[in-house]
């Protein structure tokens, strides 16, 4: 069970800043005044929790969860990993949600008009809960790269979006997982918003042949770290009363 304790201060040097001119949309959407640093109260150390009974049996299988008359087209993948906090402790029973383009780089979304075709058997989203040790896994197909309007000829590397809750609202995080060896990474303005090279490379999932299914499915590993909670060695009581 989550403890009643504050989170470690967020290390903003490993996150992209709000204002990143290389990613043009950020220019008008970035706050210009300093964020107000707020010591955690109950409002930040608590957050929504979800139960296994709220998920469907195919929610973690993107090859099958939108299948109409066949399976999704593309390179079959297992994506797996462990969600821990900054102390290395597994984050149990936390919700992960993920979404991605199809194998041709097209999103199933009203506003995506890229010429690559939709796959009638691929929705492009899934969700799962971590187990008691923080481990998660889901099955999907490898998303394709696609062009976007940043520079005239900008292409996103293949990626999967991840959303995580942790155990408190201050751990809320959205990120993207990339694939080892993708030559588009070096040209991607969004990947390039991360100022810390090591932090950026931790978003690149390595191929893991040992976790693959021979003659069936390849595997990539993506471990995710959420903010840690303080262990109060000496009393620094959070709640009043």
């Amino acid at each position, binding site marked *: 069970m989550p403890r009643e304790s504050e989170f470690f201060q967020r290390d903003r040097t490993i996150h992209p800043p709000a204002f990143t001119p290389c990613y043009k949309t950020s220019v008008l959407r970035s706050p210009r005044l300093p964020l107000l640093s*707020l010591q955690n109260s*109950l409002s930040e150390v*608590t957050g929504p929790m979800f139960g296994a009974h709220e998920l469907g049996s195919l929610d973690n299988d993107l090859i099958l969860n939108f299948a109409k008359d066949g399976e999704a087209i593309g390179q079959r993948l297992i994506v797996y990993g462990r969600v821990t906090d900054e102390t290395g402790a597994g984050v149990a029973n936390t919700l992960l949600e*993920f979404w991605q383009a199809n194998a041709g780089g097209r999103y199933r979304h009203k506003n995506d008009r890229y010429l690559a075709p939709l796959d009638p058997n691929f929705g492009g989203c899934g969700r799962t809960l971590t187990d008691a040790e923080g481990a998660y896994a889901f099955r999907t197909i490898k998303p394709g790269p696609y062009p976007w309007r940043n520079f005239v000829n900008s292409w996103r590397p293949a990626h999967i979006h991840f959303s995580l809750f942790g155990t408190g609202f201050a751990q*809320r995080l*959205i*990120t993207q997982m990339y694939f080892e060896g993708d030559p588009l990474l070096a040209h991607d303005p969004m990947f390039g918003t991360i100022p810390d090279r090591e932090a950026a490379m931790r978003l690149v999932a390595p191929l893991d042949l040992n976790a693959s299914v021979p003659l069936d499915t390849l595997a990539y590993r993506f471990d995710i*770290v959420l903010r840690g909670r303080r262990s109060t060695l000496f009393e620094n009581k959070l709640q*009043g009363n």
Partner: protein
Amino acid sequence: MVPPLGYLKETASQTAGPYVHIGLLPRQAGFEVFANSFGEAMVGPKTRGERIGIEGVIFDGAGAPLRDAMVEIWQANAAGRYNHAADLQNKPIDDEFRGWGRSGCDFETGRYCFRTIKPGPVVGRSGHRPMAPHVNLWIVARGINIGLSTRMYFADEEAANAADPVLNIIEPAARRKTLMGQRQARDQEVVYSFDIYLQGERETVFFDI
């Protein structure tokens, strides 16, 4: 070299992008995939508390509404208790209220919209006064590299707001009003209007929590 402490680094944030709805609000993206969608309905018939709406528009630095953003709220129940094990206050949990919702801004108008209940006041940090009723917001969108955290307070809670330990650290004090939802009566419904400004003279106070 001194021994390393061995902490891991938090995973870096990346923008939610323009298609965040696929993963988090697939119905808005234009398709059905899950048997139950998270965050759409916050309140059921048995939820305790005053029914309210919370609505607003998020404006960019050019004054244009963000029409592809997603907002989540997290709040205490009508008694002022969070539905979470770390809340040890001696107040009742409402089993009919998780306290969390998500809303995609309308693709045409940019308006986000929640139907919820008004939260009660929550205990403050030890040694501080109680926090006035408030709703915690988290905003993501294309062009937002790391989710933005802010709070909406209720403008009609003047006495509680004046004593709130968070509002009181905001300087200059004139910026506190950027966190005030304005109560409006509309078609027999109470709606708090809360517009958010990412830049400019009216820039909303955002928190590093």
